[in-house]
């Protein structure tokens, strides 16, 4: 079992073996969660702080449940109403928190790289719960676990990521993770929502849904991030749905057993047709939410082990 990271800041710095280690552990937690087997001892005595500078319901509650199932003392800080509004800088906030000696810090921030910056200033394990348009590693890991459980493997699959790729940290983390695990990744988006230089990531790029979805095993839809757009990326939502929204007709180009994923929250009728999202034979969207808790449990478990080992080492060298 190999997992060396001190923080989970992004997929970029993870080794494929570390990804497999984490997914294996998450797999077991997922089974135990279904059976109602608790593991309150794993993070017992540790303090987990969720710092969300951007509002989030699903990710924050997922981290909270994951921490509580493992016995951590979980605290939520809603940064939207805190001293940040009074002009405190991110680093001062980090130092203040650090003085309270948390063990696990879960951070979401609207600026790319903000979580990296924060991790440099604290003595605990930091988990990136999404930073700007940069990365959202636990989302990519839960997607990977969902795919692995549905398809029986996480390599040599053809996976299409569709929609607002330019504004999506989920897409970046998924491109990196799926590439590391040796899958064929296809990106499908209107050219205005495709990041520049993306071909150099080792992906295939399409601006036509039917062409891009041909014979894929997995269809990953992305939310149209209206709040990150400063206008004019697409002519209208209805034209976007017509050309890029996932409906039964477009989905018919994928393999017959292709699964449909979405990181949520969904804009029904914008990027995905409601009947597809609700089709229990194709949609694994609810499984993704379930796997989210398991993956976050595994991530915090592994980081806590490394943290405890590091502290033990420090205590030893102090003696």
């Amino acid at each position, binding site marked *: 079992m190999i997992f060396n990271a001190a923080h989970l800041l992004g997929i*970029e710095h993870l080794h494929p073996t570390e990804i497999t280690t984490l997914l294996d552990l998450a797999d077991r937690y997922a089974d135990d969660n279904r059976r109602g087997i608790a593991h309150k001892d794993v993070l017992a005595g540790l303090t987990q702080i969720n710092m969300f500078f951007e509002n989030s319901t699903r990710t924050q509650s997922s981290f909270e449940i994951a921490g509580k199932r493992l016995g951590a003392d979980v605290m939520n800080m809603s940064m939207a109403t805190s001293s940040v509004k009074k002009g405190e*800088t*991110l*680093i001062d906030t980090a130092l203040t928190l650090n003085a309270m000696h948390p063990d696990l810090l879960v951070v979401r*921030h609207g*600026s*790319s*790289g*903000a979580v*990296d*910056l924060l991790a440099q200033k604290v003595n605990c394990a930091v988990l990136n719960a999404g*930073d*700007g*348009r*940069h*990365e959202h590693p636990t989302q990519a890991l839960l997607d990977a676990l969902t795919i692995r459980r549905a398809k029986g493997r996480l390599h040599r699959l053809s996976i299409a990521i569709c929609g607002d790729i330019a504004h999506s*940290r989920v897409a*970046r983390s998924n491109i990196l993770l799926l590439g590391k695990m040796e899958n064929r990744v296809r990106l499908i988006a209107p050219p205005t929502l495709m*990041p*520049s*230089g*993306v071909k*150099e*990531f080792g992906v295939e790029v399409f601006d036509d849904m039917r062409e891009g979805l041909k014979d894929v095993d997995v269809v990953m839809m992305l939310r149209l991030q209206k709040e990150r757009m*400063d206008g004019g990326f697409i002519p209208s939502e209805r034209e976007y749905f017509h050309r890029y929204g996932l409906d039964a007709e477009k989905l018919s180009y994928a393999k017959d057993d292709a699964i449909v994923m979405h990181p949520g929250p969904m804009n029904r009728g914008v990027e995905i047709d409601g009947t597809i999202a609700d089709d229990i034979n194709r949609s694994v969207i609810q499984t993704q939410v379930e796997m989210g808790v398991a993956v976050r449990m595994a991530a915090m478990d592994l980081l806590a082990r490394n943290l405890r080992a590091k502290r033990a080492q420090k205590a030893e060298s102090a003696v």
Partner: protein
Amino acid sequence: MNDILFQNARLIDPVAQTDAPGAILVKDGKITAVLSEADAKGQTAAQVIDCGGLCLAPGIVDIGVKIGEPGERHKESYRSAGRAAAAGGVTTIVTSPDTAQAIDTPETLEFVARRAAQDARVNVLHMAALTKGRDGREMTEIGFLLDAGAVAFTDGSRVVTDTKVLSRAFTYARSLNALIVGHVQEPGLSKGAAVTSGKFASLRGLPGVSPMAERMGLDRDISLLEMTGARYHVDQITTARALPALERAKRNGLDITAGVSVHHLTLNEFDVADYRTFFKLTPPLRSEDDRMAIIDAVDSGLIDIICSMHTPQDEESKRLPFEEAASGAVGLETLLPAALRLYHSGQLTLPKLFRALSLNPARRMGLPCGRLMDGAPADLVLFDPDAPFLLDRSKLRSKSKNTPFDGARLQGTVAGTWVAGRRVDQE
């Protein structure tokens, strides 16, 4: 009797484009003779300096230096900038007017000129704002400002978006033969950008600007030059795609010159790495292909001037997430050793480097310095081009320490800086 004899020197002459042993005689702050080694024998002076074979070159003329007076003296004062310049072999600073309160009236200009004369130990000249408050709506009193000593007019890194305002400013400046320094960037396309678009921007999830925005800005300003016949200098050309337009404009006889910052010649977009804000610059760092093309353009003379674009920023404005962090880097003290990277990589000779560092900026600003010849001011830098060192930012003389070269291995140390025959680099 002469005042100083610099003997046993390796003279870097940017006019003759030579790099040869020789000696220099100085009297009353001016160079009185440039001699070969043989002719130097038998010459006497009150002070004889044995250069020990080190390089002696005309002192650097750095255009576009930002100093925090008035308004942000905690970032940089004339005293600290002067010390940094002297330590870096820069003998003339041409300041930028983009201070907290823009230098846009003769009164403000007189204030900063007085502050500079009191505190700075190197020559300081000033550029004034092109539009009032640098907000691109109304031109400044170009005539009065010229009388008060402004050497050029610029709104710094702000682009005058209203083309009509700019065309009037160009036309008016033309009648006074005033030099305008522009920053070329299509303002709409570059809005909100923190880095150059491409693989790196996408990987880091940072908003990027296409390198094409620079060419678009240049194309507009060249069109205005054709209309008005103004004298114009582009502060920085950093992309390959802008070069053909610049080349054409020069060939067509327009009065245009161009510069580039030493950072764009020695660093590329990947140096930002894990959101290192000391590498956040305006314009942003470019691709390696662009960097190579710009070095070639300096070599050929298409790009005339290398400058530091010295922009002091305090720690607070840099210790922020990348998008929110302030832009710019200090460079007065590192300009020479950074530029010498291009000499050590075999891409530029020393005479060509000093053509871009000293001669061309002096010529463009109408100054007699920047040359090793009889009658020129004795503004000189003596340096060892090979001496290696590790840069420690805490040792910089600037009040702000925001250098991208912290911890970098550099070669080239200044052994002495003279302004008008007076040594200025000793504390």
